[in-house]
Protein backbone atom coordinates (compact mmCIF):
# COMPACT_ATOMS: atom_id res chain seq x y z
CA UNK A 1 0.00 0.00 0.00
CA UNK A 2 1.58 3.24 -1.22
CA UNK A 3 -0.32 5.37 1.31
CA UNK A 4 1.45 3.57 4.16
CA UNK A 5 4.70 5.27 3.15
CA UNK A 6 3.29 8.77 2.86
CA UNK A 7 2.96 10.88 5.94
CA UNK A 8 1.00 14.11 5.38
CA UNK A 9 3.37 16.06 7.63
CA UNK A 10 6.38 14.85 5.70
CA UNK A 11 4.50 15.60 2.49
CA UNK A 12 3.87 19.13 3.72
CA UNK A 13 7.55 19.66 4.27
CA UNK A 14 8.40 18.29 0.83
CA UNK A 15 5.73 20.46 -0.76
CA UNK A 16 7.01 23.60 0.95
CA UNK A 17 10.57 22.78 -0.03
CA UNK A 18 9.62 22.09 -3.63
CA UNK A 19 7.56 25.27 -3.88
CA UNK A 20 10.55 27.22 -2.69
CA UNK A 21 12.81 25.32 -5.09
CA UNK A 22 10.34 25.85 -7.94
CA UNK A 23 10.27 29.54 -7.39
CA UNK A 24 14.05 29.69 -7.17
CA UNK A 25 14.77 27.26 -10.00
CA UNK A 26 11.83 27.17 -12.42
CA UNK A 27 13.57 24.56 -14.59
CA UNK A 28 12.99 21.99 -11.84
CA UNK A 29 9.28 22.67 -11.79
CA UNK A 30 8.15 20.32 -14.49
CA UNK A 31 10.06 17.34 -13.08
CA UNK A 32 8.89 17.90 -9.51
CA UNK A 33 5.32 18.41 -10.67
CA UNK A 34 5.48 15.28 -12.81
CA UNK A 35 6.50 13.29 -9.76
CA UNK A 36 3.72 14.88 -7.67
CA UNK A 37 1.11 14.11 -10.31
CA UNK A 38 2.28 10.54 -10.72
CA UNK A 39 2.08 10.00 -6.99
CA UNK A 40 -1.41 11.59 -6.92
CA UNK A 41 -2.59 9.34 -9.72
CA UNK A 42 -1.26 6.21 -8.03
CA UNK A 43 -2.92 7.16 -4.75
CA UNK A 44 -6.23 7.74 -6.56
CA UNK A 45 -6.01 4.24 -7.97
CA UNK A 46 -5.25 2.88 -4.51
CA UNK A 47 -8.29 4.68 -3.13
CA UNK A 48 -10.43 3.30 -5.96
CA UNK A 49 -9.33 -0.22 -4.98
CA UNK A 50 -10.59 0.42 -1.43
CA UNK A 51 -14.15 0.78 -2.73
CA UNK A 52 -16.42 -2.17 -3.47
CA UNK A 53 -19.18 0.21 -4.53
CA UNK A 54 -18.79 0.29 -8.32
CA UNK A 55 -19.68 3.91 -8.94
CA UNK A 56 -17.59 5.29 -6.08
CA UNK A 57 -14.72 3.20 -7.36
CA UNK A 58 -15.27 4.63 -10.85
CA UNK A 59 -15.31 8.18 -9.52
CA UNK A 60 -11.83 7.69 -8.02
CA UNK A 61 -10.56 6.07 -11.20
CA UNK A 62 -11.83 9.14 -13.02
CA UNK A 63 -10.10 11.38 -10.46
CA UNK A 64 -6.84 9.59 -11.26
CA UNK A 65 -7.29 10.62 -14.89
CA UNK A 66 -6.53 14.24 -14.02
CA UNK A 67 -3.07 13.82 -12.44
CA UNK A 68 -2.06 11.06 -14.85
CA UNK A 69 -2.96 13.19 -17.85
CA UNK A 70 -1.03 16.14 -16.43
CA UNK A 71 1.99 13.93 -15.80
CA UNK A 72 1.70 12.61 -19.34
CA UNK A 73 1.55 16.14 -20.75
CA UNK A 74 4.87 17.02 -19.19
CA UNK A 75 8.29 16.64 -20.80
CA UNK A 76 8.82 13.24 -19.18
CA UNK A 77 5.46 11.94 -20.35
CA UNK A 78 3.79 11.02 -23.59
CA UNK A 79 4.25 14.50 -25.01
CA UNK A 80 8.01 13.98 -24.86
CA UNK A 81 7.61 11.00 -27.17
CA UNK A 82 5.29 12.97 -29.42
CA UNK A 83 7.74 15.87 -29.47
CA UNK A 84 10.50 13.51 -30.58
CA UNK A 85 8.27 12.05 -33.24
CA UNK A 86 6.30 15.03 -34.48
CA UNK A 87 7.95 18.19 -33.25
CA UNK A 88 7.12 20.89 -30.70
CA UNK A 89 3.80 21.96 -32.21
CA UNK A 90 2.52 18.40 -32.11
CA UNK A 91 3.78 18.13 -28.53
CA UNK A 92 1.96 21.29 -27.43
CA UNK A 93 -1.21 20.11 -29.16
CA UNK A 94 -1.03 16.70 -27.49
CA UNK A 95 -0.23 18.31 -24.12
CA UNK A 96 -3.35 20.45 -24.39
CA UNK A 97 -5.45 17.43 -25.35
CA UNK A 98 -4.10 15.61 -22.30
CA UNK A 99 -4.97 18.57 -20.07
CA UNK A 100 -8.51 18.59 -21.44
CA UNK A 101 -8.81 14.85 -21.04
CA UNK A 102 -7.69 15.17 -17.44
CA UNK A 103 -10.18 17.91 -16.71
CA UNK A 104 -12.93 15.86 -18.32
CA UNK A 105 -12.07 12.96 -16.02
CA UNK A 106 -11.95 15.29 -13.02
CA UNK A 107 -15.33 16.78 -13.88
CA UNK A 108 -16.85 13.36 -14.48
CA UNK A 109 -15.47 12.12 -11.15
CA UNK A 110 -16.91 15.13 -9.33
CA UNK A 111 -20.32 14.74 -10.95
CA UNK A 112 -20.37 11.02 -10.16
CA UNK A 113 -19.36 11.67 -6.55
CA UNK A 114 -22.09 14.28 -6.17
CA UNK A 115 -24.65 11.97 -7.76
CA UNK A 116 -23.72 9.00 -5.57
CA UNK A 117 -23.77 11.03 -2.36
CA UNK A 118 -27.31 12.09 -3.27
CA UNK A 119 -28.32 8.50 -4.01
CA UNK A 120 -27.10 7.14 -0.67
CA UNK A 121 -30.23 8.54 0.98
CA UNK A 122 -28.31 10.12 3.82
CA UNK A 123 -30.04 13.44 3.47
CA UNK A 124 -27.47 15.21 1.29
CA UNK A 125 -29.27 17.81 -0.74
CA UNK A 126 -28.48 21.10 -2.43
CA UNK A 127 -30.32 24.22 -1.39
CA UNK A 128 -31.88 26.87 -3.57
CA UNK A 129 -28.95 29.25 -3.02
CA UNK A 130 -26.55 26.59 -4.28
CA UNK A 131 -28.35 26.38 -7.60
CA UNK A 132 -28.35 30.18 -7.79
CA UNK A 133 -24.57 30.11 -7.28
CA UNK A 134 -24.24 27.43 -9.98
CA UNK A 135 -26.28 29.62 -12.27
CA UNK A 136 -24.06 32.58 -11.43
CA UNK A 137 -20.92 30.61 -12.29
CA UNK A 138 -22.34 29.47 -15.61
CA UNK A 139 -23.41 33.03 -16.36
CA UNK A 140 -19.95 34.22 -15.34
CA UNK A 141 -18.49 31.66 -17.70
CA UNK A 142 -20.58 32.98 -20.57
CA UNK A 143 -19.56 36.56 -19.78
CA UNK A 144 -15.90 35.58 -19.47
CA UNK A 145 -15.91 33.85 -22.82
CA UNK A 146 -17.78 36.71 -24.39
CA UNK A 147 -15.30 39.26 -23.13
CA UNK A 148 -12.33 37.05 -23.96
CA UNK A 149 -13.34 36.60 -27.56
CA UNK A 150 -14.18 40.22 -27.91
CA UNK A 151 -10.93 41.36 -26.29
CA UNK A 152 -8.89 38.78 -28.16
CA UNK A 153 -7.50 37.24 -24.91
CA UNK A 154 -8.75 33.77 -25.52
CA UNK A 155 -6.70 31.17 -27.28
CA UNK A 156 -9.34 28.96 -28.93
CA UNK A 157 -7.44 25.80 -28.12
CA UNK A 158 -7.68 26.62 -24.41
CA UNK A 159 -11.42 27.25 -24.49
CA UNK A 160 -12.28 23.59 -23.88
CA UNK A 161 -10.18 23.38 -20.74
CA UNK A 162 -11.66 26.60 -19.40
CA UNK A 163 -15.23 25.42 -20.00
CA UNK A 164 -14.44 22.23 -18.10
CA UNK A 165 -12.93 24.21 -15.23
CA UNK A 166 -15.97 26.46 -14.95
CA UNK A 167 -18.25 23.41 -14.94
CA UNK A 168 -16.08 21.79 -12.28
CA UNK A 169 -16.36 25.01 -10.25
CA UNK A 170 -20.14 24.82 -10.55
CA UNK A 171 -20.19 21.20 -9.31
CA UNK A 172 -17.88 22.28 -6.48
CA UNK A 173 -20.67 24.47 -5.10
CA UNK A 174 -22.92 21.43 -4.79
CA UNK A 175 -20.18 19.24 -3.32
CA UNK A 176 -19.28 21.93 -0.80
CA UNK A 177 -22.87 21.90 0.44
CA UNK A 178 -22.63 18.15 0.98
CA UNK A 179 -19.39 18.63 2.89
CA UNK A 180 -21.16 21.05 5.22
CA UNK A 181 -23.99 18.57 5.71
CA UNK A 182 -21.56 15.79 6.60
CA UNK A 183 -20.58 17.63 9.77
CA UNK A 184 -16.81 17.31 9.43
CA UNK A 185 -14.82 14.15 8.83
CA UNK A 186 -11.99 13.15 6.51
CA UNK A 187 -14.22 12.55 3.48
CA UNK A 188 -15.51 16.12 3.65
CA UNK A 189 -11.96 17.39 4.06
CA UNK A 190 -10.80 15.43 1.01
CA UNK A 191 -13.64 16.71 -1.14
CA UNK A 192 -12.79 20.24 -0.03
CA UNK A 193 -9.19 19.75 -1.11
CA UNK A 194 -10.45 18.73 -4.55
CA UNK A 195 -12.68 21.80 -4.57
CA UNK A 196 -9.69 23.94 -3.58
CA UNK A 197 -7.70 22.40 -6.42
CA UNK A 198 -10.44 23.29 -8.91
CA UNK A 199 -10.76 26.78 -7.45
CA UNK A 200 -7.02 27.36 -7.68
CA UNK A 201 -6.91 26.27 -11.30
CA UNK A 202 -9.90 28.48 -12.09
CA UNK A 203 -8.21 31.47 -10.50
CA UNK A 204 -5.02 30.59 -12.33
CA UNK A 205 -6.81 30.54 -15.64
CA UNK A 206 -8.54 33.82 -14.93
CA UNK A 207 -5.22 35.37 -13.95
CA UNK A 208 -3.63 33.90 -17.08
CA UNK A 209 -6.33 35.60 -19.15
CA UNK A 210 -5.62 38.99 -17.57
CA UNK A 211 -3.49 41.31 -19.61
CA UNK A 212 -0.17 41.37 -17.76
CA UNK A 213 0.68 44.86 -18.98
CA UNK A 214 -2.26 46.21 -16.99
CA UNK A 215 -1.46 44.20 -13.86
CA UNK A 216 2.13 42.97 -13.58
CA UNK A 217 1.37 41.45 -10.17
CA UNK A 218 -0.80 38.96 -12.02
CA UNK A 219 2.36 37.39 -13.44
CA UNK A 220 3.73 36.68 -9.98
CA UNK A 221 0.39 35.44 -8.73
CA UNK A 222 0.13 33.13 -11.69
CA UNK A 223 3.60 31.80 -11.03
CA UNK A 224 2.81 31.17 -7.35
CA UNK A 225 -0.46 29.39 -8.13
CA UNK A 226 1.30 27.30 -10.72
CA UNK A 227 3.74 25.88 -8.19
CA UNK A 228 1.09 25.40 -5.48
CA UNK A 229 -1.86 23.78 -7.16
CA UNK A 230 -0.41 20.26 -7.82
CA UNK A 231 0.22 19.84 -4.10
CA UNK A 232 -3.37 20.67 -3.18
CA UNK A 233 -4.71 17.66 -5.03
CA UNK A 234 -1.92 15.45 -3.70
CA UNK A 235 -2.67 16.53 -0.12
CA UNK A 236 -6.34 15.79 -0.43
CA UNK A 237 -5.75 12.41 -1.97
CA UNK A 238 -3.14 11.52 0.65
CA UNK A 239 -5.64 12.27 3.43
CA UNK A 240 -8.14 9.92 1.86
CA UNK A 241 -5.59 7.19 1.25
CA UNK A 242 -4.44 7.44 4.87
CA UNK A 243 -8.01 6.69 6.03
CA UNK A 244 -7.61 3.15 4.74
CA UNK A 245 -4.15 2.84 6.34
CA UNK A 246 -5.43 4.02 9.74
CA UNK A 247 -8.48 1.78 9.48
CA UNK A 248 -6.27 -1.25 8.84
CA UNK A 249 -3.99 -0.34 11.74
CA UNK A 250 -7.00 0.01 14.04
CA UNK A 251 -8.39 -3.27 12.73
CA UNK A 252 -5.11 -5.01 13.54
CA UNK A 253 -5.22 -3.53 17.03
CA UNK A 254 -8.85 -4.63 17.59
CA UNK A 255 -8.11 -8.15 16.31
CA UNK A 256 -4.99 -8.29 18.44
CA UNK A 257 -7.00 -7.38 21.52
CA UNK A 258 -9.72 -9.90 20.62
CA UNK A 259 -7.26 -12.73 20.13
CA UNK A 260 -5.45 -12.02 23.38
CA UNK A 261 -8.71 -12.26 25.40
Amino acid at each position, binding site marked *: MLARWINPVFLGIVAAASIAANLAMPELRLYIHSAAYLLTGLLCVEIARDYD*HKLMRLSWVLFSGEPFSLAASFPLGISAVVSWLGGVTQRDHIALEMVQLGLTCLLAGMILTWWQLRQFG*LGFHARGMDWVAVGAILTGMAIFFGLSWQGGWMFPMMAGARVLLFLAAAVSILLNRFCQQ*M*GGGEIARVIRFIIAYVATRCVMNLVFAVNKTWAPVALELEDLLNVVFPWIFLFGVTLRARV*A*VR*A*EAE*LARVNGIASSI
Partner: protein
Amino acid sequence: MKHPIDYDDWLGYLDGDLDQIRTARVREHIDHCSECRSTWNELLEATAALRSAAREYAAVHAVCDDEVRSGRERVLARIRTLESPSTLESVAAGELTVGRLRKLQHVVAPVGGARTAFRLIVAAAGRTPVPQGTAAWRIFLEQLTDLTSALCGRSMARLVWEIGNSLP
Protein backbone atom coordinates in the same frame (compact mmCIF):
# COMPACT_ATOMS: atom_id res chain seq x y z
CA MET B 1 -62.66 -51.68 15.40
CA LYS B 2 -60.17 -49.88 13.19
CA HIS B 3 -60.48 -46.08 13.28
CA PRO B 4 -59.47 -44.60 9.93
CA ILE B 5 -59.71 -41.02 11.25
CA ASP B 6 -56.60 -39.15 12.35
CA TYR B 7 -56.28 -35.76 14.08
CA ASP B 8 -56.06 -34.00 10.70
CA ASP B 9 -59.41 -35.50 9.68
CA TRP B 10 -61.03 -34.52 12.99
CA LEU B 11 -59.88 -30.93 12.75
CA GLY B 12 -60.75 -30.67 9.08
CA TYR B 13 -64.20 -32.10 9.71
CA LEU B 14 -64.76 -29.69 12.61
CA ASP B 15 -63.67 -26.71 10.49
CA GLY B 16 -65.46 -27.90 7.35
CA ASP B 17 -62.16 -27.94 5.42
CA LEU B 18 -62.19 -31.54 4.21
CA ASP B 19 -62.86 -32.48 0.61
CA GLN B 20 -66.02 -34.39 -0.28
CA ILE B 21 -64.41 -37.83 -0.23
CA ARG B 22 -62.80 -37.44 3.17
CA THR B 23 -65.91 -35.79 4.61
CA ALA B 24 -68.02 -38.72 3.46
CA ARG B 25 -65.50 -41.20 4.92
CA VAL B 26 -65.45 -39.47 8.30
CA ARG B 27 -69.23 -39.11 8.41
CA GLU B 28 -69.75 -42.73 7.52
CA HIS B 29 -67.31 -43.92 10.19
CA ILE B 30 -68.88 -41.72 12.88
CA ASP B 31 -72.29 -43.10 11.97
CA HIS B 32 -71.02 -46.64 12.56
CA CYS B 33 -68.57 -46.21 15.44
CA SER B 34 -69.92 -45.26 18.85
CA GLU B 35 -66.46 -44.50 20.23
CA CYS B 36 -65.71 -42.02 17.47
CA ARG B 37 -69.20 -40.60 17.70
CA SER B 38 -68.55 -39.90 21.38
CA THR B 39 -65.17 -38.33 20.49
CA TRP B 40 -66.85 -36.22 17.84
CA ASN B 41 -69.47 -34.95 20.29
CA GLU B 42 -66.81 -34.11 22.85
CA LEU B 43 -64.70 -32.28 20.28
CA LEU B 44 -67.74 -30.41 19.01
CA GLU B 45 -68.71 -29.36 22.53
CA ALA B 46 -65.14 -28.37 23.40
CA THR B 47 -64.74 -26.34 20.21
CA ALA B 48 -68.03 -24.53 20.71
CA ALA B 49 -67.20 -23.88 24.37
CA LEU B 50 -63.76 -22.59 23.47
CA ARG B 51 -65.12 -20.27 20.80
CA SER B 52 -67.75 -18.91 23.15
CA ALA B 53 -65.28 -18.49 26.03
CA ALA B 54 -62.77 -16.75 23.74
CA ARG B 55 -65.48 -14.34 22.54
CA GLU B 56 -66.53 -13.64 26.13
CA TYR B 57 -62.92 -13.01 27.15
CA ALA B 58 -62.33 -10.77 24.13
CA ALA B 59 -65.43 -8.71 24.92
CA VAL B 60 -64.18 -8.00 28.44
CA HIS B 61 -60.78 -6.89 27.15
CA ALA B 62 -62.06 -4.70 24.34
CA VAL B 63 -60.54 -1.24 24.11
CA CYS B 64 -62.66 1.88 23.88
CA ASP B 65 -62.29 4.58 21.23
CA ASP B 66 -60.49 6.92 23.63
CA GLU B 67 -57.86 4.30 24.38
CA VAL B 68 -57.37 3.65 20.66
CA ARG B 69 -57.05 7.37 19.99
CA SER B 70 -54.50 8.02 22.73
CA GLY B 71 -52.53 4.90 21.71
CA ARG B 72 -52.50 6.10 18.14
CA GLU B 73 -51.27 9.57 19.15
CA ARG B 74 -48.42 8.06 21.14
CA VAL B 75 -47.32 5.86 18.26
CA LEU B 76 -47.60 8.71 15.75
CA ALA B 77 -45.38 10.83 18.00
CA ARG B 78 -42.78 8.07 17.95
CA ILE B 79 -43.07 7.74 14.17
CA ARG B 80 -42.59 11.47 13.70
CA THR B 81 -39.48 11.34 15.85
CA LEU B 82 -38.30 8.40 13.77
CA GLU B 83 -38.84 10.27 10.50
CA SER B 84 -36.66 13.09 11.80
CA PRO B 85 -34.68 11.42 14.55
CA SER B 86 -32.47 13.74 16.43
CA THR B 87 -30.95 11.34 18.93
CA LEU B 88 -29.73 7.78 19.04
CA GLU B 89 -32.27 7.12 21.80
CA SER B 90 -35.09 7.50 19.30
CA VAL B 91 -33.43 4.92 17.05
CA ALA B 92 -32.35 2.40 19.69
CA ALA B 93 -34.51 -0.70 20.11
CA GLY B 94 -33.92 -4.25 21.30
CA GLU B 95 -30.37 -5.37 20.57
CA LEU B 96 -29.57 -1.96 19.10
CA THR B 97 -28.74 -0.34 22.43
CA VAL B 98 -27.76 3.31 22.72
CA GLY B 99 -24.30 2.37 24.00
CA ARG B 100 -23.54 0.16 21.02
CA LEU B 101 -24.87 2.68 18.52
CA ARG B 102 -22.87 5.47 20.12
CA LYS B 103 -19.68 3.42 19.96
CA LEU B 104 -20.15 2.78 16.25
CA GLN B 105 -21.01 6.41 15.66
CA HIS B 106 -17.65 7.35 17.20
CA VAL B 107 -15.89 4.97 14.85
CA VAL B 108 -17.47 6.38 11.68
CA ALA B 109 -17.64 10.09 12.63
CA PRO B 110 -13.93 10.99 12.21
CA VAL B 111 -14.04 9.76 8.63
CA GLY B 112 -17.59 10.35 7.45
CA GLY B 113 -18.47 13.30 9.66
CA ALA B 114 -20.63 13.44 12.80
CA ARG B 115 -23.91 14.02 11.00
CA THR B 116 -23.17 11.39 8.36
CA ALA B 117 -22.33 8.85 11.05
CA PHE B 118 -25.66 9.50 12.76
CA ARG B 119 -27.55 9.22 9.47
CA LEU B 120 -25.75 6.01 8.57
CA ILE B 121 -26.85 4.49 11.87
CA VAL B 122 -30.42 5.69 11.40
CA ALA B 123 -30.48 4.30 7.86
CA ALA B 124 -29.04 0.95 8.95
CA ALA B 125 -31.47 0.73 11.89
CA GLY B 126 -34.34 1.45 9.53
CA ARG B 127 -33.32 -1.54 7.41
CA THR B 128 -33.07 -3.88 10.40
CA PRO B 129 -36.07 -6.14 10.97
CA VAL B 130 -37.89 -6.57 14.25
CA PRO B 131 -35.34 -7.33 16.96
CA GLN B 132 -35.14 -11.10 17.41
CA GLY B 133 -32.26 -11.80 19.71
CA THR B 134 -28.75 -11.48 18.35
CA ALA B 135 -29.90 -11.79 14.72
CA ALA B 136 -31.05 -8.16 14.71
CA TRP B 137 -27.60 -6.90 15.72
CA ARG B 138 -25.91 -8.94 13.01
CA ILE B 139 -28.35 -7.67 10.37
CA PHE B 140 -27.91 -4.08 11.58
CA LEU B 141 -24.12 -4.46 11.34
CA GLU B 142 -24.42 -5.85 7.83
CA GLN B 143 -26.53 -2.89 6.75
CA LEU B 144 -24.22 -0.39 8.46
CA THR B 145 -21.17 -2.05 6.94
CA ASP B 146 -22.70 -1.89 3.45
CA LEU B 147 -23.48 1.80 3.82
CA THR B 148 -20.06 2.57 5.33
CA SER B 149 -18.34 0.66 2.55
CA ALA B 150 -20.13 2.70 -0.10
CA LEU B 151 -19.25 6.00 1.52
CA CYS B 152 -15.90 5.46 3.27
CA GLY B 153 -14.42 2.37 1.60
CA ARG B 154 -13.87 -1.27 2.42
CA SER B 155 -11.25 -0.72 5.15
CA MET B 156 -13.58 1.42 7.24
CA ALA B 157 -16.42 -1.02 6.65
CA ARG B 158 -14.32 -3.91 7.94
CA LEU B 159 -13.37 -1.87 10.98
CA VAL B 160 -17.03 -1.11 11.71
CA TRP B 161 -17.87 -4.81 11.36
CA GLU B 162 -15.10 -5.98 13.68
CA ILE B 163 -15.77 -3.37 16.32
CA GLY B 164 -19.51 -3.98 16.08
CA ASN B 165 -18.98 -7.70 16.64
CA SER B 166 -16.66 -7.12 19.55
CA LEU B 167 -19.07 -4.89 21.46
CA PRO B 168 -20.56 -6.37 24.65
